[in-house]
């Protein structure tokens, strides 16, 4: 199958976007590599603390005028951005496939979800309204006004390089705040493209800023006294540090962290009907998402159903076409980084050592198109997995499915709830009663019923519990509006 045209043809030198200008960084440069082809795409600077401070200062200086800009005028910039996102939809999507490795369908899905955040944030004139009650006492009225706070920042993950920053930034700027984003240095190019479009949309200088970099830049943002709040998506280990740092510096925080998601299959589930959802969940985005399926729990003591389901699952997984995502026939791309692949290989070794049975081994990948296999893995399936094994309890973040078996729904729910993580879980069943019981008792923030990926739409919060989330309010929707605003309460009497 012919490849779709690559939009990035030459190695780019990435810059920072501060106060409406593209400025070169003095920081060290790192290579950004296409994980499918191993070809360099860009050189990204590790911005210095001074450069981060300059971005925060630009955002702080832009804040007073921006907060006085009417909500209607603010969202007009977002309407223009939305139009530009549509115009550049395909280019943005292909850039994500180049920098991250995901398939073109997945990249387009990511672009669409990012654009939907902008669409929802254009509703700010309504979403940001406060509330009031007259005559709380004789002749006294009380009301709430939602006001912006100042500068917010986002420290972005590598797995959804385009979409995740958009869970936050449109809501932040629409409510009158200013923003600094730090993309992941592994795949920062789609954020550069987004910043170019934001610039073109007519946002005043300083309202939206981008600084490239790694841990030092992130720390500089988190420690900066002028940053009022931080949003972060990444691992639980780093997430806890981010949350702690935000606490120490008095910042609001949304910290979305690691996951170990369970997908339950009840004996009344359709075998063939669930396969596309399970393939997407376990192997979509090469298993590199916090909503990915990790543990497949087959419920019941019906051996015939177990064998039939398992055969179908392994057989379907074994036929997944792995290769470069700009080939439209590809269903799974490479791991984004060599480190990520190494970590997954380590877990496969650990699973074998723990006594789980490897029934589909993806360690020697067959790659369509003859690309170097450096970053690639094929789908991997373990069976006879015990709940206390490391492969069943720790986040692998790759295309590895662990199959467990339990007697009944109660046992399955207990297993889900015994996890340290609480990001997402799903049940596949034709029983409304079982689905309702699951939804009621399960301790995860996002719950799927006959769906493999429980990705909340832009107008709902992206939830999470336990070690998968630190904070109070979530990204997206009304939660995001509340996060980016302070409730000012006015009690009024006229004499």
């Amino acid at each position, binding site marked *: 199958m012919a490849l779709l045209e690559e939009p990035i043809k030459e190695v780019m030198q990435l810059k920072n976007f501060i106060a409406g200008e593209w400025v070169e960084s003095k920081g060290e440069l790192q290579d950004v590599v296409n994980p499918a082809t191993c070809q360099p795409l860009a050189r990204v600077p590790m911005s210095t603390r001074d450069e981060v401070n300059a971005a925060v200062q630009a955002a702080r200086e832009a804040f007073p005028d921006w907060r006085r800009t009417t909500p209607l005028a603010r969202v007009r910039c977002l309407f223009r951005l939305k139009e530009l996102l549509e115009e550049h*939809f395909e280019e943005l999507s292909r850039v994500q496939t180049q920098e991250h490795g995901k398939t073109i369908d997945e990249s387009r899905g990511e672009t*669409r979800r990012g654009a939907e955040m902008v669409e929802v944030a254009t509703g700010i004139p309504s979403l940001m309204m406060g509330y009031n009650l007259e005559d709380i006492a004789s002749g006294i009225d009380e009301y709430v006004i939602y006001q912006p706070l100042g500068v917010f920042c986002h420290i972005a993950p590598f797995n959804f390089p385009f979409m995740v920053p958009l869970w936050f930034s449109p809501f932040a700027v629409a409510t009158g705040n200013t923003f600094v984003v730090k993309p992941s240095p592994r795949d920062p190019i789609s954020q550069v493209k987004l910043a170019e479009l934001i610039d073109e949309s007519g946002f005043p200088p300083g309202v939206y800023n981008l600084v490239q970099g790694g841990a030092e830049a992130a720390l500089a943002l988190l420690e900066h006294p002028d940053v009022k709040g931080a949003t972060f998506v990444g691992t639980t280990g780093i997430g806890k540090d981010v949350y702690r740092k935000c606490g120490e510096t008095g910042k609001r925080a949304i910290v979305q962290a690691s996951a170990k998601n369970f997908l339950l299959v009840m004996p009344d589930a359709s075998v063939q009907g669930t396969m*596309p*959802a399970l393939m997407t969940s376990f192997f*979509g985005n090469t298993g590199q998402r916090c909503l990915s399926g990790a543990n497949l729990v087959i419920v019941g003591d019906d051996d015939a159903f177990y064998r039939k389901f398992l055969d179908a699952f392994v057989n379907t997984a074994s036929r997944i076409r792995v290769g470069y995502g700009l080939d439209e026939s590809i269903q799974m791309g490479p791991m984004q980084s060599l480190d990520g692949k190494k970590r997954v290989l380590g877990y496969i070794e650990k699973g074998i050592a723990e006594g789980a049975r490897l029934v589909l081994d993806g360690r020697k990948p067959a790659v369509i198109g003859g690309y170097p296999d450096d970053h690639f893995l094929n789908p991997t399936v373990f069976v006879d997995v015990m709940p206390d094994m490391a492969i069943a309890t720790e986040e692998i973040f790759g295309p590895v499915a662990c199959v467990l078996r339990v007697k009944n729904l109660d046992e399955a729910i207990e297993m889900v709830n015994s996890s340290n993580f609480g990001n997402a879980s799903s049940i596949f069943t034709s029983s409304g009663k079982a689905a309702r019981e699951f939804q009621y008792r399960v301790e995860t923030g996002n719950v799927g019923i006959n769906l493999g990926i429980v990705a909340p739409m832009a107008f709902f919060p992206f939830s999470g519990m336990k070690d998968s989330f630190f904070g109070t309010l979530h990204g997206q929707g009304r939660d995001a509006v509340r996060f980016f605003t302070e409730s000012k309460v006015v009690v009024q009497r006229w004499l």
Partner: protein
Amino acid sequence: MELNTTSQVVSFARDLEELGARFYESLTRRHSGDAEVWRHLASENRKNVTQVERAYYGVISDALEGCFSFAIDPDKYAIEAEPAGGASYHETVKRAVEMEEKIVRFYLEAAEQSKSLMADVPHAFTLVAKKRNSRIPKLMALLGKEG
């Protein structure tokens, strides 16, 4: 090779519509008496592409099964852009009817298999199948006529 991903299926639909449009455009020269009919059909094909692409790009989500929904054999729906050389008007129209029937079957299969995607995608496939289906009696009516 089987079509598995939504991107593949949408590209295949685009190619089918384009080949179909070229087929009708070639008829405007060969059977110019009905040139307006052929031109209209060719232009409608291109509108179908817009309709399917708009649905796909408008609702595609990484959360649904975009890469795993389909198992379509494209060979079942292969068509040619050029009518056979020296074919009569009657033979050519007959071929157009066969082509339309084949494309309708493709869209119906695509609609059936995309039920797990956002509803707009199977809906767009079904609408195009319906539109194309309505062409068949019109083409059949031309069969009795000499070009």
